Every structure is written in C-alpha cells, then in structure tokens.
C-alpha cells in the first residue's frame, strides 16, 4: 500500500532504508510513537518485523507478526480498517510467516504463494519473489504499493542483469513527489545507471546521489554503515579520493556489529577500487584475499577469477 507518510512513519522508513535495523527493532512503536492513522501504525510494525527478519531474529519476528495479525483483525472489527485492506494486510502477515518457515526450515508454502496476485504490487509479492527467486514478478503499475513495485523492479534487474532505465523511476516522481523510497531508488540509480555524456542533466546522477547520501550521513538519525558505504561509492564515482579516504576512516568508527554481509561485500569492492586508484597494491591484495574468502561465489569474485584466467591465457599466448 502507498501512504503519504506522516513524520513519525517517515522517520521509520528513513531509518529502514538507511539500514538502521537494530534501531528500528529497539523502538517501542506503541509508546514512543503517536500515529495519526492506524494504517501508519501497522505499516511501522511491518518495518519493525522486516528489520527483525533482516537481523535473522525470526522468533521475535513471529511473535510480532502474531500480535500484528490480532491488531489488524481487531481494527477491522472496529471499522478502523476496511475489510479489503485488512485482507491485504493479513496476506502480508501470512507471507512473512511463511518466509520465516522458509528461512528456518527451508519449506515453501506453495499454496499460499500461488494465491498471491502477481499483477498487484504488495509486500506479500515482494517476499514471494524472495522465496521463489526463479519467478520474474513484475506488476504492471505502481498503484496500491509503490514501494513493493520498485522493490520488485530492482529484484528483476538483479536477476536479469539488465539496467533499469532511471527515467521510469524519475517519471514516478511526478505522482509520488514525497515518496522516500523513490528518493532512495533515484539515488541508487544515480550511481549505478550508465554514464552518458548528458547524464549529468538527469535527476539520477552521481552528484545528486552524493548530495542525498551526504545529507543522510550528516544527520544522526540516518547516519549508518549502509549510507556511509554508499557515500564512499559516491566519492569514488565523483573522483573525490581524499573524501573517500575520510569516509573509510569514518566507517571504522561506525558500529559494524549489525552490518549485513551484503554491505560488507559492497564495502570490500569499494575499498579495492579505492586502493587500486591510489596504487596501494599491498592493501588491495589483502582485500582481494578477504573477498575471495568471504564471498567465494559472488559475481565480483567470479568475474575476477575469469579475468585472471583470461590473463593467464594472454601470458601463454604471447610467450
């Protein structure tokens, strides 16, 4: 569902996409927050549960899901949520529960997942896509749930190894001008979209991404390891090597206890690039060893392996 977020929810979303999952988990949404709408309240709880899932705290996540289910049912009974919305939310809850089973027991509830409408973006559909990663789920319209729509767009991109045309995302901005997730998506695409001679004219350009992540990193609420890694990528992309070095220093001071493996993977790659740019061979070698050890099946490591093999063949060809 797409809601124009009020400030309380806005903060939660901002933290969520900044990767501050532990902070979200620590929030007492019932006492610390005063949501003006019951849907905001439920939405915030979903973020909390998703944070727990990302931190692999399945037990607590299951408990919260049970609570949330009750909350949805009672709100429906009290006419605070209409039946249709309640149904959508309850499906989301079910799929999140099935995701927990999938993670813990590797079991897939095909019946449930198959019942989910593939044409309508929803949180349930996002998790269905994660569980059934071979399925290409691409809802046709962002209506009803912009966040899930973008999420699925990115997921398809990752699986198909295709580029997302930033204009499709930028175009959405006309209808959803205050959507945080759009801002994040544009900032991500600003970094990853192919450079063209006119790419600085587009809204999704590295400079704007830099402004975005710099702003997030300079606010205590959103200063996070994930944003810092993205900021590091911005500096490197923009050729700001001294500033990139500063960010790596800052990263050392940030708590990396809750850092997700995917972030560490990005960080290692970005640090390798930094050391290549500065011709620091020793450090680069160490980082390469680390990434090979920790992420042996990753696309980056595979690519490097291919390149090394290619180089071997070059050496033997010309010798």
């Amino acid at each position, binding site marked *: 569902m797409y809601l124009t977020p009020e400030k309380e929810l806005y903060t939660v979303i901002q933290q969520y996409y900044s*990767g501050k999952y532990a902070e979200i988990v620590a929030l007492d949404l019932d006492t610390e927050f005063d949501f003006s709408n019951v849907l905001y309240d439920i939405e915030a709880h979903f973020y909390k549960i*998703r944070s727990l899932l*990302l931190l692999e705290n399945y037990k607590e996540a299951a408990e919260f899901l049970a609570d949330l289910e009750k909350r949805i049912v009672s709100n429906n009974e009290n006419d605070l949520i209409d039946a249709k919305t309640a149904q959508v939310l309850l499906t989301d809850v079910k799929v999140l529960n099935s995701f927990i089973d999938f993670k813990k027991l590797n079991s897939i509830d095909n019946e449930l997942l198959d019942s989910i409408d593939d044409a309508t973006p929803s949180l349930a559909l*996002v*998790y269905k896509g994660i569980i059934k*990663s071979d399925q290409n789920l691409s809802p046709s319209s962002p209506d009803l749930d912009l966040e899930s729509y973008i999420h699925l767009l*990115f*997921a398809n*991109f*990752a699986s198909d190894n295709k*580029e997302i045309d930033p204009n499709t995302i930028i175009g959405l901005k006309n209808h959803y*001008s205050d959507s945080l997730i759009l801002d*994040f*998506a544009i900032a*991500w695409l600003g*970094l*990853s979209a*192919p*450079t*063209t*001679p006119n*790419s600085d004219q587009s809204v999704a350009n590295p*400079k*704007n991404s830099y*402004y975005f992540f710099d702003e997030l990193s*300079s606010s205590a609420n959103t200063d996070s390891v*994930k944003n810092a*890694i*993205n900021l590091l*990528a911005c500096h*490197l*992309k923009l*050729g*700001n090597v001294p*500033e990139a070095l500063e960010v790596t220093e800052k990263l050392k001071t940030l708590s990396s206890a809750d850092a*997700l493996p*995917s972030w560490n*993977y*990005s960080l290692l*790659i*970005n640090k390798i*690039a930094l050391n*290549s*740019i500065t*011709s620091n*061979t020793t450090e*680069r070698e160490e980082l390469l060893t680390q990434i090979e050890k920790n992420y042996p099946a990753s696309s*980056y490591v595979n*690519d*490097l392996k291919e*390149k*090394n093999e*290619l*180089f071997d*063949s*070059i*050496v033997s*060809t*010309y*010798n």
Partner: protein
Amino acid sequence: MGTLIDRFEDHDGPVRCVAFHPTQPIFVSGGDDYTIKVWSTQTRKCMFTLTGHLDYVRTVFFHHELPWIISASDDQTIRIWNWQNRKEIACLTGHNHYVMCAQFHPKQDLVVSASLDQTVRVWDISGLVKKHSAPSGASSFGGHSSMNQFDQYSRNQPPQQDIFGNTDAVVKYVLEGHDKGVNWASFHPELPLIVSGGDDRAVKLWRMSETRAWEVDGCRGHTNNVPCVLFHPTEDLIISVGEDKTIRTWDLNSRSPVKQFKRENDRFWMIVAHPNINLFAACHDSGVMVFKLDRERPASTQNQLQELFYINNDNQVQKYNFSSKATSLPLLSLKKIALPWNKIKNISYNASENSMLIQSGDNDTGIYSYFNLPKEIVGALEPSVRGEGKANSAYFIARNRFVTFLKSSHKLNVHDLNNNVTKAITLDSDVKDIIPATPGCILLLKPTTVVLYDVQQKKEIGLLQMSNAKYAVWSNDGQYLALLSKHTIVIVNKKFETVMSMHETIRIKSAAWDDTGVLLYSTLNHIKYVLLNGDKGTIKTLENTMYITKVQNSNCFCLNRRGEVECLEIDPTEYRFKKALINKKFNEVLRIIKNSNLVGENIIAYLEKSGYPEVALQFVQDPETRFDLSIECHDLTVALSEAKKINTKPIWEKLGREALSQGNIEIVELVYQQLHLLDKLSFLYLATGDENKLSKMADIAEKREDIGSLFTNSIYLGDVERKIQTFLHTGLTPLAYATAKSNGLDDIAEKILADAGVDLKDISLPDQLLKSKPSGVLKPINKTTSKNWPLSEAKLSFFEQALSGNFEELQLEDKAANGGSTINEKSDMIDSSFADDDYIDDNLGEEDAWDLGDDDLDVELDNAEEEIENQTDTSKLPKELKTWVKNSKTPGAYIAAGKFDTAASMLNKQAGIKNFEPFRQRFLEVYTASKLNISTFDEESSGNLPVYISDVEKANDGKVLGLVPGYDQLEELVQEGFRLFKSNQLESSIGIFRKIIYIIATLSLTSDEEESKCKEILDICKEYIIGLQIELARRALPPAEIKRNLELAAYFTHVKLQPAHRLNALQVAMTQSFKAKNYHYASYFATEFLKIMSSGNRAEQARKIQAKAENIATDAISIDFDPFTDWEICAGDFVPIYKGEEIIREKILGVGYSKSWKGKICKITLVSEIGGIGSGLRLRN
C-alpha cells in the same frame, strides 16, 4: 558615458545654477557675477546676458511653456525674465533675506520660493501670465494646451493685488515653520504639495488648498543643513541631500526614512531628477554623481516548460508562455513580503515543489522569502510564506535545498525546504555576490574573479579572471556559460576555460542564448550578438532598454522596465550566416545567400576578412570592390572583366601580378601590352619561348630606335647578325667585329674591317675567343606553351561552383563533414599535377610510409583499432562497459572495460610486448579501480548493484570511458624511485621504475601535456633502470675483475641521472679509477664531479684526486670507455655500441641493444621484445 562635451566660460566668478530648456536647444545659468546668461547648445556660445540682480544669483529655471526664466538672488528678489525679448518682466519682492531658490509650478501659475528669512513663499503669477498672454489664451510660445476649466475660470477672475497694487505676482502663502533659513522648496508634480529643506536640518512637507497652506509634517534625520530637496517624479518619495554627506529618501505618505546613501568626505549641495529617465544627479564637494534609486530590471526566471516567471512593477508574480506568447494573470502579490521601496532583485523557481524564492534589499536590509505558487492562477493572491530570513541573494541549488548569501557576514547558508540551515559555509571576504550555476553549484562573484563553487563539497571547481562580473547565462545545451559585467562578456565552457572574451563600449544589460548557440545581448540601446569566435554585430536598435530573457528563432523575448514581456522580431540571418560560415556548414551558407537579402558593407568586409571573398563577390556590384574581391579569391576572369571596366594603371598592375603568380600568360601579356611594358613583354616571350613574338618585339624596338631594347631582344632571340648590326649602328665597331669573328661570321667580320679601314694585322683578339665555338643563345625549355602555364587549373571553391549553379558535382554534406573542402581540393590538385612528375618517387612503398609524420601513424592506428573493436565481443558486457569498449582507443581504456585480450593485443602491436606476466597487477589494478558496488534492498540476496566509475574529464568531453588510475601517482612514484636510489636500495628502486613503465603503458590520457609528461618520465625510468642495473652488475663482480669493474663504474656515469644522483656514480667511478691507478680517468670523473658540486667534503676529496691524478695523468688499466665520443650502452651486455654500429631497440623506451640481442625480452622493461615491431605506445584516448 560622462564625457565632457564642452566648457562654457563667460561667467565672471562662480556659477551657482544651470537649467536646460525642456524643448529648445538652450540653457540658462546664473552666478556670483549677478548675471543670468542664456546659452545655445548648438553654437555652444552665450546668446545673451540678463542683468538686473544686485547680488549672487542662486537658482534659475525655465518655465515649462512660456518663454520665461525665473531667478532667485541674494538681493532678496525673485525675477522673471522673458528670454525671447530678453527683458525682465517681473520682480517679486517680499523676502527679507537671500532668496535661495525659486521655481515655477509645473502646471499652474504659481511660484514657490525659499529664503534664509526662514520662510517659504508661494506666489500667484496668474496676473503676469494674463498680462503677457494673448487674449485668446494662446501664448507667444506654444499655447496653454494643458489649461483646464478651473484655470480658465480663475483667469477670468479679477487679479489679486499686493499692498503696492501690483497685480503681476502676489504672495499667496507665506509658509513659516523652519527654524532657520530655508534653502530649497519644490512643488509636487501632481499634488498640491510643497517640500522644503533648510538649515534647521529639516525637510518639511506642506499642503496647499485654494485658500490656505499648512505644514503637514517634517522628515527629521539629516544631521546638517539640507540644501536641496525634491519629490520623486513618479513615486511617492521625497529625496533630499544634506551637508551631512547623505542622500536620503523618505516615504511621502508616512514621512519615514526609506534609504540613505552616504559619501565618505563630500557634502551634497543639490539634487535634480531627469525629466524622463529614472536617473538622478547630485552634486557634492568633489563632483556630480548620477544614480538610480533602485534597479529597473524586473526579476525573472524560467522553468523547463517554456515559461518565464517575472515580477511586474506592481510586485506581482506573473507567468509568460513563450510558445503561446500569452501572459498570465498575476499569480501572487508580493507587496507584503518584499521590502517596501526595494525592487525584488532575484527570483528562483523550484519546479519539483512549484515554489519560489525571492530576494530584495541590499546590504544588511536584504531579505529572502520562500513560498509556494498557486496551482491554479486566480489572481494576485497573498502567498503563504514557508520561510524567510536575511540575505542578499537566494537561489535553489537542488530540488530539495536552496542557498542564501549574506554579504556582511560572508555566510553562505544551505537550507532544506523547511528553511532549516543544514550547512553554513563562510566564504572569502571578497565575495560580493552569488549567482546560480549548475545544480549543486553556484558562482561566487569576486572583484576580479568568478569562482565556480560546489556547495556540497565546499570546493572551488573553476576559476576565471574577470572583473566585476554581474550576471551569468548558461547556453541551452549547458555547454557554455556567458558571464556579463558592465562592459565585458566572457564565454567559458563547462570546464570554465575561456572560449571568448569581448569588450562592449555601451553598458551591457542582459543576454540569452539562441537555440543554435549564439549569444544575444542587450546594451542600453541595442540588441547585439556575439559568436563563440568573437565575431559580433548589431541586430536591432532599441528605443528603451530591454532585458533579454529568451531567443527562439526570430523571436527575442525581453522584459521592459515597465515589468512587461515584449516579443521583439529580430532577423537572425546575419549571425546564422556567420555561424554557418565559421562551422563550414556551406549548404546552410548557400541557403541563406539564396533566400535572404543579406547585403551591406559590414557583411562584405566580414566575408573578406574571414577568407570568403568568393562569397562576398556575390553581394557586390561596384567594379573596384568586385575587382579587389576577385583578386582575393584568385578569380582572374572576374578580375579581368572588372579591370577592363575600371581601366587604370594600378588595377592593371595588380591584375598582372596576380596573373603572373597564377601563370596565366594570356592575361599577363594583355596587361603588359595594356601598360606598354615592352621589356617585360620581351622577357615574357623569352620565358615562354615565343620566338615569333620576340622577333616582333625586336622589330618594334628597331622602329622605335630603342637600341637597348633592340639589343636585348637580339640576345633573347640569339640573332647574332642583328646584334652585330646594333653594335655597328651605335658605333661600337670593335665589338661588332669581335662578335662576328667569335661567332664564325668571317665574311661579316672582314666587311666590318674593310668598312672601318682597319688592317687585320692591327687587331689582336684573345686566342680563347677565336678558339671557342659559338655558344649560341639558350632557347626556352618550354617551347610548347603558347597557352597558359602548365599548372592544373585551380578548382573552383565550393561557393564558386555552387553560386555558378553547378550543384551536380557538389556533395555538400560530405565536404562539410570532412572539415571543409580546401584540404581535399589541395591534395587533389597536387596529385593530379605531379602524378607524372619526376620528383615523385614511384617506388615509395608502404613501409616507407611509416616514416611519415605522426598524423599518418595515427590513421593507421585508428584503422587497427577499428579492426580490434570490430573483433571485440561486447555482447555479454553490461551497458556501461559496452560504451567504454566502444570509445576505447588505448590499452588502458580496454583494460578498464575488461577487454584484457584486446588490450594485450594492442600492447603487443604497439610496443612489441610479449611477456605479460609483469603486467598482471597493473591489469587488475586498472580493472578493479572502476568497479564499485552498492546495497539497495537488503531483503534481496542479490540486492546489490554494480557501479562503474567513468572518467569524469573525458565524460565532459563527450567520451564515456572507464577510469584508468595511475597518472596522479606517477610523480610520487618517481620520487619514491629516487628515494630508494639514494638509500642504496637499488633493486627496489628498479622495481619502482618498472612499475611506472607498466602504469604509463596502460594509461588513457586526455591531453598533450599529460602525454609529454609521461614520455619524460619514461626517459627517466629508462636511464635509471639501465644505470642501476650497471651498478648492480658492477657490485656483483668478483674482486679480480678490475677492468670490468672500472668500465661498469664509468658506464654508470654515462646514463642521464639527476645531478645529485650522478654525483654518486661519478664518485664511485672516480674512487675506483683512482684506486686502480687509472689517474687520467680519475681526473676526468673528478672534473665532472666538481662541475656539479664545487664545495663540501666530497668536493674537497674530488679536488685532491683531481690534483693528484692530473700530475700523473696516466692509466694503469686500459678500459673501453671514451667519454668524448658518441656511443650508447647496450642494455644487455653493458658494452658501448659506437656510432655506426647496428643498434636494435625495444619499443616502449627505445632501449638500445647490440645485434645479438634481437628477439629476446628487454632486460630493462622485462616485457617488450628487443627489435620487435611496433608503432609506438598510444597513451591518449
């Protein structure tokens, strides 16, 4: 501006007042010589003098309609004069002190005066007017056209009388209220108001009714006497000047101060308003200042949708659509949020929020406000302000932030959309203003520079030397920026490099780029254009100053000073024509020539100057101009036809020179004939081998009895008999005899002798003369040329062909695409004319072509690269890397794109690189340097996105390529190599220099400068690695090999090291030689050492060795080292290869080896093949 026109010097003493007549070319002055003088601005002379005042004349003014002058004097009177009959017509008495000022009412028959008697008086002069007017009401000068019914009525009333029965001019009101003398009083132009200023430091406002006048209020603030005060001609303002060195403005309605300006040292004495233009002039102790009270430029900004937002003169936001040329209703009224009496200086629009930022006011009073625009236009609504504060400039720099700048604190604040300051930056104190640049960047305007400043990174990213820049306009494609100051325009590119700079005499007011990239600008009274190469011209003359906002085809959208948009029709033909010419878009040029009536001396001069006389020729009828242009474009046909029309000697001479230089014999002959240049004609016939005509020339000479010419022609013809006859004719009998004899014409010789009566015995001729055979006269080599000189006929230029209607043979686009036709045509010409010439070596093979210049090499390389590119499979690559591959031309760029095989192939072909293993780290370094990664949605196991770093500089130039690192590290690495050298870590030092070689071989550079720097560094690497290897080899020698030791030490001194490092080599060689008793060599090394270092312990030691060695000067061991001959070290064996011996080289550094090393891997680079084939490394992409 401000130029002195003339001086008028008839007054005897100071001049206190001057006034121009509103319509006639005259002006009046009054001074301390008690006189009033009327001057003609045409003759610049005094027309007449009015006398009568008995003391200084303080003020003089013309009546707005009647031929009258009013004067005020220290003699306590006011006098009115008729300047037509030059008579005094009234003397107004009543003031009992100096009258400091007297003025007519602008419409009514009233006079106001101010006196040091502390009063202001209003006089009724209707009696006087009536007396001096015709009964019908028409005056002798013009008429009372503005007279209304009320005036008519009052004129019909019986005139008022004063106590003396004087009815001409009577005091109507005496205004008392000033505590000291009153210096000035003025009427309001419309309302029944008077303002006065006095020595009591007060400015007072008075109101009049029909029956009375009274003080309304006073404006207090001046801290010294107020010598002059007036009403603003159009606004509700009072403007006063003071001896307190200030000019002050007051709100007429509230009488509160509005603004003030202070001079440091000068007291102000008078102020006057221009009758039509918004200008004021104020005199002070050191001169006059002319000024505006406020800016007249309406603030404006554009959005992406062909719309202009601007502030009208009622302080309302309005919108203008360039497409429909429609002006909207006012959107918002800013009266309440803008500073009163301050024009809004700038506005900035945020499309994503549909919001606007405005700024008004200067210095510390400056403010900004931020508000949303209404979605629907329903009229001038009051905006609801979302943020406001103090600032002198305020602009959006991104969709979610704006900056404000306050000059007094030098603070640049970055605000979010909630008006929270998210960043505060202290700028340099000399920053005067800021203007927006690209997103995220602003321009800092300093007194002598303009700085492009990235707000987020707090970095100066561009600097331009330019004084007092005020405005900036980006071209529509964002490629160029025009910076405007009062009299200068500088155009810079995206990198902030100056493309064009020009000076404009008249003040520049505004500029905008048209769709084709031409800058149009407005001055006070013109719209002009300037092209990127600096060519400029005038498009339109303006009656009123305009501010250009947009140029679209032939529409120039301007804002006028009334705050309205005007669409001016302009003719873009001239600048489009010039632009097309400059860009060699000849089809466009042709189109314009055919479709427009582009004429005028300017354009002809321009074409001639720009090297397009053949185009100019199309516009001209005048024969002389046509002749000059045809000579310029070497068109002899046109030149000849025009020369015949003009038929003057200089023209024929000019044609002759041109024809001669082109080898057009026919025209040259015609010219010489025309000019009777017989000698030249003869020589022409000689040169062309035309014996018939030469013979005719000889006949002509004979007939003309021109002996000299006859003789010359005889020689040219080789006609010995005629030569002899000429000698005889001139009485040179001996010469005639000698000529005949020496040419074997014995009969003639004898006859000459006989005729002269001389015996053969009396003559002795040199034997040599008699023995030599007659040489005859050389005949011209080229005898076939009855036609013109055998040069290929110059091809017609593109335009000449096109303009003569020959379109079939023209391939417009191709030629234009080839960068113009001239080069191709020239090469065609050379090919055809010299194809069979002996000068060309037909055997010049393709291999020899490699020895041609770099350009040719580049062509070959490009082809090779195209082949490589065609072979490169990019289908599996991500889009970004595909682009990189497509744009790659260097091995480095290919490596960044992951095409290791292509890069290796290039390195092999360019530099004969065969051993790639040492490149492994470098390949990996280049490849990984441009690969980044970011996390997006964490739920996804594959939610990470790859990010590629492309080379920012090259992307700006339109080439998207992968970042290739290393160039920035080179200097540091060289220093590291030197450091290791100094610290005797020779192997490590070699390792560093080799690393540098591998880096350079895989760079992807942008400029010549970078490339030449790399080549210099490669030379350093070569010398150091060779030197260090020699030294390592020497150190590895067993002690017994003294000779080799000495040789290697000597060779080490031969490589080109830095002087400080060469000292080490020389010291080693010197001590080793000395120890081995090779004193001669030791002396040589010591001398070389002392050339570099002449003092210190080491120098002392060298000096001792030198002294000792010079005494002995012998060498115990003979070594193979001669420092005085030309040789090169073989980097394989470390033995000299002397001049003449075969040297085999490798291709990266050009390291030399003896023949036996051919085919092996270079010991210096460890990667390149010795004697390998290669075109040389390509470092620039």
